[in-house]
């Protein structure tokens, strides 16, 4: 049984954006503390600290969670994805591109969380209805209230990603065409 005494520290290992990391944590640290303080991944924002605003949303084993409500020790051996993992090879993710195009960013504080909730949705379907999108970001508050642009951006990103996917599967002999899902996202 792992035991971290009050005030004591321990090392946990897990994967962040595909990379194995080891970080020293206190028993009562939260995932957001580990990300921001331990790993200096400050893209993830802390808003309310009580799971109501979604600014700290990251993916844990592919599922959207509030990183302010995840005890650090529960992350041992698991896979975490943050907004820093979205851009690949110097190119922003289609979701990020769409957010820029649709001016879905005002003050920007909710954006990383919005992107991660949207990412979880688009991995499930590239044909989301407006309702699906609204539900997917229902745990993310935008104090600037720019929801309309955010929803259009997510819709647009889905469309573009679907088109790109169709193109890729055509190019690769259409063998994977019936697979569906989110593909490389």
């Amino acid at each position, binding site marked *: *049984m*792992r*035991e*971290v*005494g*009050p*005030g*004591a520290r321990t090392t946990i290992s897990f994967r962040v954006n595909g990379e194995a990391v080891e970080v020293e944590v*206190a*028993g*009562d640290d*939260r995932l957001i503390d580990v990300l921001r303080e331990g790993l200096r991944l400050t893209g993830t924002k802390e808003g309310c*600290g*009580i*799971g*109501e605003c*979604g600014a700290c*949303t990251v993916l*844990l084993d592919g*599922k*959207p*969670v*509030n990183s*302010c*409500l*995840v*005890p650090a*020790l*529960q992350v041992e051996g698991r896979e975490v994805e943050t907004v820093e993992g979205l851009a690949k090879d110097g190119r922003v993710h289609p979701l990020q591109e769409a957010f820029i195009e649709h001016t879905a960013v005002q003050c920007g504080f909710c954006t990383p969380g919005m992107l991660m*909730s949207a990412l*979880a949705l688009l991995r499930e379907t590239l044909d989301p209805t407006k309702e699906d999108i609204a*539900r*997917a970001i*229902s*745990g*993310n508050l935008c104090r600037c209230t720019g929801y309309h642009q955010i929803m259009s951006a997510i819709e647009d990103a889905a469309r573009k990603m679907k088109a790109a996917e169709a193109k890729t599967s055509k190019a690769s002999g259409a063998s994977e065409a019936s697979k569906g899902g989110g593909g490389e996202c």
Partner: protein
Amino acid sequence: MSPRKPGYVVPETLAEASEFLREHAEDARIIAGGTDVLVQLRRRGRAGGEHPRWLVDISRIPGLAGVSTDSGTISIGAMTTHEEIARSPIIRKGGPLLAEACTSVGSPQIRERGTIGGNIMNASPAADTIPALAALSARARIADPTGTRDILVTDIFEGPYETSAQHGEILLDVYFDALPPSCGCAFVKLGRREALAIARLSVAVVLERDADGRVARAAIAPGACLPMPARVESAEEMLVGKVPDEAAVDAAAREVAEEMVRRTGVRWSTDYKKPVVEAVTKRAIWRALGVNAE
């Protein structure tokens, strides 16, 4: 002065967890998905209050999560998340009102982490799953190293945020009879907004009708408006044996509202709550009868 920091233990077996909890009694608190405990720690820290000395993380104990079904009985492990329950084909078929209740919890992020065991043992009067479990007459199994006790879910509660669980006891699972196809059910919740709203009021209803359309069995369990989660038998009895018509449904809904006032006494909010409880109950009963009376 910063509040004392809690320690953290991750038991790998039920026995380890149970022993640690018994040994540290008042100083230890179980943590599952963390969606209530971490919020409470933060609030307490800000208020300058004491933290528990230990958090006991039961998330690595094998066998505590998942939905299963065996000869008509559905059981749900305590560590099963709201999201898993909401999506479970077994629950959607055999207890769809519980799937609805789980869907109404918090937000997608909270539903991925929050567990049914945590929802029950946190014992919030506004817990979303409890009215649904009450209407399903769900039972719970609670274990300590010496054995397992079996208890009606509604009997676990001793007051708001208080359960009968002793130090060292851990909720294993809840179980109930799958609803037959002749049953209709509904869960209706009122919150201040759609997502992340704490229930101001909810009502769970299960109605079984015989071949003649008469109500053979009724269960009505309001949430967030009674001192303790419970069914309202006096209202259920007003439906049993009847082919439900408007008069019968109205009478049962009125009885639920009146019973709430009898159990809570008249409060400042009674003027608001009484007609609302009646209206929401009516809506839930009609929905359980297959009529959407929005």
